């Protein structure tokens, strides 16, 4: 079965190279990207059926790669990566359908490359391998924003790449140093996650090394203070890049912390726990206020995304089973809802050439189907009951109260704030005075994209235990190793 994992990485990138070299026409490109993404989805579904939920890492394969420094092509998945793999592989076909009419070949190439990068990052268990994929997936985003984006796209794409590379470089330093410490301690080189996790380092060097990882992933999330790229990047990004950025890339920051941060530095994170908790709470409030004040829908949901990711990060660092399963569940439901909302914002942009709230209004009276789904996703993002977000946020709030009363109160109250924000946004955008006269309702193709997301979003709200079964045992196993 581990062959399938390698296949998942190789298939998209192979398609890119073959189609790129043969200069395929746009039609072939459309068909093959969509079919490859569907194949990847089917393969991951297959993996899910084979997956044994009671065990941790599975489908492991380890092949030497750079022998000189003991780096290996070391892959495997557990429930955490499986959930994210399912998300990306579900989203990619939908994104490809949504850009079916586009003439620009670059979208297809970049998205396929991105899929390879993300899948690679999700399955790699060797730190250098992870770093490789982590950087690779940056490139398509950089090019998509810079090439097809809006506004000051060149400047903003440069900004996003410089900030994220800065984080990656600090992580690279930590990785190299960890590898060296492994060599010092055991006399052999290794960059494998489980080998490095066994290292006994002094507290001080652990704090510095953990800081390197934390910086890289916090920029991606982003925690407050490292967030200056997010609003401009989201505002400049074209819809496909935007969907990937909010639904996948930001979550990978969390994934990185979870997989690498907690595995390597779970004891050290005690020192960072209060810092991250405070930053996350400030972030939730700050981002929520910033979101309310935006007039541009993309910027607004950029901040709302960041607010929720802060919540997820908070749940992660509280490190108890409620907050952890809440965080992972919120990753799922937020990815579904934000993918939906950003796709629909893209539709608004296509139809009206504006995504400014002050220019919108009255869509509800001309496009009822659109209104229904838009409201559903918007409410799904803030987690009203019947959507997955509600369950997840409840769990995180439980976890927060378990950790400390004050943190619990803050967390719970920001949730209420978020609901106010989304209702006010809906009122101004969709309802209110009839500014929008011409607004074609959702076409069949658009419904094809939106409905699976909507169904899943509601299903996660109604049958949480069905989804949580996949990862709960795994999370408990992972928690046993965590000493916060």
């Amino acid at each position: 079965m581990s062959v399938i994992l390698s296949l998942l990485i190789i298939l998209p990138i192979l398609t890119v190279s073959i189609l790129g070299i043969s200069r395929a026409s746009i039609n072939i490109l459309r068909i093959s990207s969509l079919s490859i993404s569907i194949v990847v989805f089917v393969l991951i579904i297959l993996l899910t059926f084979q997956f044994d939920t009671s065990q941790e890492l599975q489908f492991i394969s380890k092949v030497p790669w750079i022998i000189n420094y003991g780096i290996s092509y070391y892959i495997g998945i557990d429930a955490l990566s499986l959930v994210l793999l399912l998300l990306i592989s579900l989203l990619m076909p939908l994104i490809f359908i949504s850009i079916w009419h586009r003439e620009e070949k670059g979208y297809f190439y970049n998205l396929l490359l991105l899929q390879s990068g993300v899948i690679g990052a999700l399955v790699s268990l060797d730190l250098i391998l992870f770093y490789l994929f982590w950087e690779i997936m940056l490139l398509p985003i950089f090019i998509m924003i810079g090439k097809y984006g809006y506004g000051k796209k060149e400047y903003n794409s440069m900004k996003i790449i410089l900030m994220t590379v800065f984080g990656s470089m600090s992580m690279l330093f930590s990785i190299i140093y960890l590898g060296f410490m492994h060599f010092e301690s055991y006399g052999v080189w290794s960059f494998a996650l489980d080998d490095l996790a066994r290292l006994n380092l002094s507290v001080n060097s652990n704090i510095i090394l953990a800081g390197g990882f934390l910086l890289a992933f916090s920029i991606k999330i982003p925690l407050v203070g490292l967030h200056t790229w997010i609003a401009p990047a989201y505002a400049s990004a074209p819809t496909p890049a935007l969907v990937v950025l909010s639904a996948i890339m930001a979550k990978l920051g969390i994934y990185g912390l979870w997989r690498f941060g907690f595995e390597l530095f779970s004891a050290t994170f005690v020192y960072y726990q209060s810092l991250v908790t405070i930053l996350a709470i400030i972030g939730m409030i700050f981002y929520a206020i910033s979101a309310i004040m935006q007039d541009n829908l993309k910027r607004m949901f950029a901040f709302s995304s960041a607010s929720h990711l802060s919540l997820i990060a908070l749940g992660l660092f509280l490190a108890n089973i409620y907050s952890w399963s809440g965080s992972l569940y919120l990753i799922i439901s937020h990815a579904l809802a934000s993918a939906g909302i950003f796709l629909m914002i893209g539709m608004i942009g296509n139809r009206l050439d504006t995504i400014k709230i002050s220019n919108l209004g009255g869509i509800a009276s001309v496009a009822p189907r659109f209104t229904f789904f838009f409201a559903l996703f918007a409410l799904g993002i803030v987690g009203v009951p019947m959507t997955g977000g509600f369950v997840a946020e409840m769990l995180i709030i439980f976890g927060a109260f378990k950790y400390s009363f004050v943190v619990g109160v803050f967390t719970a109250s920001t949730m209420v704030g978020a609901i106010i924000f989304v209702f006010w946004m809906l009122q101004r955008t969709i309802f209110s005075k009839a500014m929008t006269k011409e607004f074609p309702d959702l076409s069949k193709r658009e419904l094809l994209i939106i409905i699976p997301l909507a169904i899943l979003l509601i299903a996660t709200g109604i049958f949480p235990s069905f989804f949580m079964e996949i990862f709960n045992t795994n999370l408990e196993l992972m928690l046993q190793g965590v000493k916060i």
Partner: protein
Amino acid sequence: MIEFLISLSLTTIIIGAIVLMLITLYKSISIAHKNLLAIGILFVAFLLQLIILLNIDKSIYLYPDIFNHSFIVDKLSTIFDLMFLGGAIFTLAINNRYFINRDYYNGEFFSLILWSVFGMMMLSHANELISAFISLEVASISIYTLVGYKKDDIKSSEAMLKYIILGALASSFFILGTALIYGAVGSTGFGDIHNFIESHPTQDLSMIIVGLSFILITILFKIGAVPFHSWVIDVYHGAPFPITMFMASILKIALFSILLRLYLVDFSHFYNIFSPMLTFIALITLLGGSLLAISQTNLKRMLAGSSIVHSGYLLMALSSIKSDNQEASLAIMFYLVSYVISAIGAFGILSFVASHRKRKLTFEEFKGFAHQRPFLGAMMTIFMLSLAGFPSTIGFLGKFYIFMSVIQSGNIALAGFGIAIAFISVYYYFKLIALMYFYPSPHPKEKYSFSITTVVISLLAIATIWGGIGTKLISFLPSGDVLLEIAREALMQI
């Protein structure tokens, strides 16, 4: 056998150089054919060296009776020879179009290139200071001439004058250093110097230390290390494209071939003196080179500045060589290969673009380049990523090995500094990618033209990617690991 082969490959190049000079008289032979002839000669020498590499198992002296132990043949020198020859082949092949579109190139150009390669090969074999100096000058003087090859171009002449005056001054330091060492040791052979140092207490060796420092100054000047870098940007800019490429890549390897041998043999007793000095020079080279590279608006000048930065990385690795830990020299050799592949590729694309129409090659000119020429744009992106040290390219592994060796020598802060500089370099390399892709092109889309240049560029791009990911996963194809193993065996022989 090996002596015969090595002299055969050297004489092939000399004879080739003379033949090329003579056939300049025949105007009927086209420039493309002369280029092909030069490539052919280099390729024969390359094959001979390849045979030597496969057969050599211990270091021997080249005709010790005639040359009095002045020249050594071992795996290290053979690898460096292969790098010079391979690099020269790629340089000539990639510039084919450039030569054809310029009327002033003629046979003597290739002849001078071959002479220069000959000098470099002798340099990598040199086991004695005077022969090293002569070989270095053979290589350098050919290049002085080549820098000013376009006589009616004022920039080219300026570059040559600058380079020749400063270069001659720097070379005189080499002679001075040699004299001082000879005064102390009574011999200029590397082995003799080494034995003398080993058998005397450190306080008696101050003259040797001063002499070695002088020699080091010459080499640092030639590789463009800060503070001896002031010539680099202007000379690289003024020189014709093929020569800029040749200097930035192959001449640099040649200097490292002698520097590495000297440093491993004769400096070995003084690492605690030279290591901090080199560390300091590496730091300012990295910083100064980055500042120069960031501020350039012309691509050729930017690459010149970035070549200073790459010298800085190499010096960083050199400074971390310890007597009990020579991993860094492997890293240096790998980095040289990785840099040469990417730099020749990047310069090659520039020269290919420059060969078609008169262009200034500023960053502005490259706006929308990827729309105009998608293939070359993609290739340029690969080379830029490699130069920036982006993972999945050979450039990343090169930097990775250097950082690892620096950390292994215990200098963690220096490795951290190197990573920070790598971050800065991301800016100016990605700026080019951004310009190529993010702006509409003012020129119409050009058709993909098949030529030897594009083939070589694609080959180099494949090598760049393969070097970065190619691995033991696919064991029958050679990759970075193989290179390291050969280099390791070579170092064992010293």
